[in-house]
Every structure is written in structure tokens, then in C-alpha cells.
């Protein structure tokens, strides 16, 4: 439930959306009108081979394209408002120290360095967030990893395309304690995680073992980090997401990759901004402190120990 100030803020954003949406609809209507007339003229001109009908028809279609472009400008402006105003405000309400950049992302070198996923041939990301919660630093962004795929037809012609194999979110949590060992927990297959030098571990939870492959430098380290209750929390986190999930404890970081083919923090210009419509945004943002709390990343275990 949002507070009074928040409702006022939502109303203000909704007013901006309404104004942009009106403009968007107007441009769309005009564009469709031009498309209709243009297609009619061009169609008749084409059938009757009459250039004086075909050329104006094509011109009208080009004009329609320009109006569609203008409509898209409104949609883009709305997207900018959602990201720069709505998301930033929601983030600042949850975290004291947070920054957000819709165009930035976690560098691919950081993801590659975990060796939990194969190196992409093309990489894109957005919605980079960075902050601190209960002394635990976090970073996250949307990511889209593509691989180069070559297909050869019967004539021997090669077609190159780039196919997405990982699209979703990448989280990094940084705690104080630096572990010398590595623990990788990977759901599903096909990520080509580097498990060289690591031992495959089976936990006491059969359901967990069926879902995840666990690799660690030593058995002790794996069982030290993933306690019985943490097993349940990791399962619960997996159930929250469609697709697959991977976890990697390395050094003083926990990396979580969620491959759910989702583009986070997006809202259509057609959707009125209300408490209900931003529920997903809030749930997304609330997941960050939830992970820290549930996995107890702020506990003594993840702090520097003088033992």
C-alpha cells in the first residue's frame, strides 16, 4: 500500500502519461489515416499502372511512417519518465544509497569472470542499479547475451544470425568477507559453466539436487555456505522466476543470474499508472533487500572474521 505522498506522485506521473498518450494516439490515428489512403491510392495505381496514383500513394505511406515515428517519440518520452522519475523514486524509497542509470549495465567482463555461462558474441544490457542495503553492496542490470549461429542451406549458402541464449537479470551482492573458494549452483544445462577444479556436490535435499548442479572447490565450503535453510531460500527464489537461475559465490561476491527472457522495468504507454500497474516494479525492487535478508548476506558469516 502506497502512502499519500506516493499516490500524489503517481497521479503526477499519470497526468504526464495521459498527456503523452493523447499525443501518441493522435499521431497514431493520423498515421493510420495516411496508411489507409496511401495504400488505397498505391494499390489502385499499381493495379491500373497509373503513376499519378501510385506516387502520391507512396508519398502518403512515407508521411504515415513519419507520424508513426512521432508517436514512438511520445512512447519513448514516456519510457524516459518512467525510468528517470518513477523507478528512481521507488528505488530511493527503499534504499538510502542508490543510483540508477537506464542506459548503463554490468560489464560483460564481470559476468565472464564468474565462468558460469559461456561468453557471448554479442552483449547488451540496460537498467543498471547500484546501492547498499544493510552494509551489503549490490549491483544489477538487465542483460541480453547472444551467440553467433551459422546455418547452411542445401545450396551451401551460409546465413549468420545472433540468437539470445540468456536474457534477464544479473545481480551482484558484495559482502565484506573474502572467500578463497568458489561455489557454483546452476539450474538446467547449456550454460557451459567452467567446473574445472571443482567437485560436484549433492546436498541432503533431493529436490534441490534434481533442480541444480552444485560445484565447489571443497565439500566443506559448499555445506558451509548453503545451510539447510539456505537451500530452501534458494529454491524459493528459483520458484519466483520463470526460466532458470544460477548462483555463484566467488571472492566476496554472490552473483545471481536469472534467465527468464524478461525485460524488467518496462511499462506500456497504454497502461494507466496506478498502484496495481507498478506492483511488478515494486516487487522487483523489493527482491533486492529480500535476497539480502533471506540469504542473510548481512550476517556475521559474511563479515570479516577474526577467528
Amino acid at each position: 500500500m502506497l502512502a499519500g505522498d506516493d499516490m500524489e506522485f503517481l497521479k503526477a506521473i499519470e497526468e504526464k502519461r495521459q498527456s503523452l498518450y493523447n499525443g501518441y494516439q493522435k499521431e497514431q490515428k493520423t498515421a493510420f489515416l495516411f496508411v489507409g489512403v496511401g495504400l488505397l491510392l498505391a494499390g489502385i495505381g499499381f493495379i491500373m499502372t497509373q503513376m499519378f496514383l501510385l506516387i502520391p500513394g507512396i508519398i502518403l505511406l512515407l508521411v504515415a511512417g513519419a507520424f508513426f515515428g512521432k508517436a514512438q517519440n511520445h512512447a519513448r518520452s514516456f519510457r524516459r519518465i518512467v525510468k528517470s522519475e518513477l523507478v528512481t523514486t521507488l528505488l530511493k524509497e527503499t534504499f538510502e544509497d542508490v543510483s540508477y542509470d537506464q542506459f548503463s549495465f554490468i560489464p560483460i567482463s564481470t559476468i565472464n569472470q564468474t565462468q558460469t555461462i559461456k561468453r557471448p558474441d554479442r552483449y547488451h544490457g540496460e537498467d543498471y542499479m547500484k546501492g547498499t542495503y544493510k552494509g551489503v553492496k549490490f549491483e544489477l542490470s538487465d542483460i541480453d547475451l547472444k551467440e553467433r549461429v551459422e546455418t547452411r542451406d542445401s545450396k551451401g549458402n551460409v546465413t549468420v544470425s545472433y540468437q539470445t541464449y540468456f536474457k534477464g537479470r544479473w545481480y551482484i551482492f558484495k559482502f565484506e568477507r573474502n572467500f578463497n573458494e568458489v561455489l557454483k549452483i546452476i539450474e538446467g544445462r547449456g550454460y557451459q559453466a567452467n567446473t574445472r577444479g571443482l567437485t560436484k556436490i549433492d546436498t541432503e535435499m533431493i529436490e534441490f539436487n534434481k533442480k541444480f548442479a552444485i560445484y565447489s572447490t571443497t565439500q566443506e565450503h559448499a555445506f558451509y555456505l548453503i545451510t539447510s535453510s539456505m537451500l530452501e531460500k534458494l529454491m524459493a527464489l528459483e520458484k519466483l522466476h520463470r526460466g532458470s537461475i544460477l548462483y555463484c559465490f566467488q571472492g566476496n561476491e554472490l552473483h545471481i543470474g536469472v534467465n527468464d527472457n524478461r525485460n524488467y522495468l518496462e511499462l506500456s504507454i497504454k497502461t494507466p499508472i496506478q498502484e496495481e500497474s507498478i506492483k511488478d516494479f515494486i516487487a522487483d525492487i523489493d527482491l533486492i533487500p529480500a535476497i539480502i535478508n533471506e540469504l542473510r548476506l548481512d550476517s556475521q558469516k559474511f563479515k570479516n572474521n577474526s577467528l
Partner: protein
Amino acid sequence: MPTGQIILIVVAILLVIVIGWIISTINSFRTMLVKIDESESSIDVALTKRFDMLTKMFQATKGYMKHEQETLQKVIAMRQPAHGAPIQEKQAFANEISRGLQAISVVVEQYPDLKASTNVNKLMDATLEVEENLQASRRVYNSNVSYYNQKVVVFPSNVIANWKKFTKRAFFEAEAVKREDVKFDF
């Protein structure tokens, strides 16, 4: 090639396969026992650390104790079971330490100045860390024992187990209070 020779070759191949399997099964049992032994050593180390923590906690809080002091002194006077001692003995020792730590936790709860003491807080954190290590070692040990026990009872490896007298090993059970997760209510 004469039939007799073919039969001889087939029998020889089968013999090599069977002998190879026997050797590899015996070796895998021995490897498993080494792993169990190693994980038991980790339990011993964790138990020693835990016992040390109990002693330190007792020293730091004994001034505040009344009737608990006598009971705790008995626990502290206990001797840690040797490495070769039965796992049940170690389990009983671990239970006694748990009881001791719980008694200390009750005392700490009763005295706010004790609860606020930096030294006691550091000891509590260290105790928790040791506890986490013990639980990890226990789970590693049980995981190794579980795998080994399965091999002891499942065919065909149970044939070798019976022949070479590889018997089932006991688990290191968690005390009822620890089954959920490590959490001392300090």
C-alpha cells in the same frame, strides 16, 4: 580358430573384467572410507574449537552465574573423545557443549551489561562461526556416510562389502535444536 581357444579367450576376458571390477570396487570403498575419515577429522576440529569457545564464554561470564556454574564446570571438565572414538560418543560430547552454550546464552540474556560487552559479543560471533563450521562438517560427514552406506547395501557392490567386511557407518545426528539451522538465541 578352434572353438576351445575362443572359449578360453572369452573366459580370460571375462576374468579380467571381473577382477578389474573387484579391484576398483575395493578401491572405491577404501577411498570412501578415507573421505569419511577426513570429514570426521573436520568434525573433531570443529568440536575442539567449539569446546574452546565454551571455555572462553564460561570464563567471560562465570562472574554472573549462580547455580549454572557447577553444571558448566562439569561440562568444561569433560574430555573430548579421541579421533578413533565412536561417532555416538562425539555426538554426546557435542550435545553436552550445546547444553553448556545454551546455559551461557540464558545468563547473557539476563544481564544487559554482559550482553553489551564487546568481548562477550565477539565471543558470541566466534561461537556462531564455529557452530556453522560444525554443521557444515556434520553435513559433509553424513553425505559421505550416506553414499558409502548405499554402496554397502546395494547389489553388486554389497557382495564385495560382505566379503571384505565393509560395514555400515553411523551418522552424526544433529541435536533436535540444530535441525532447523544454526541459531543461538544470544
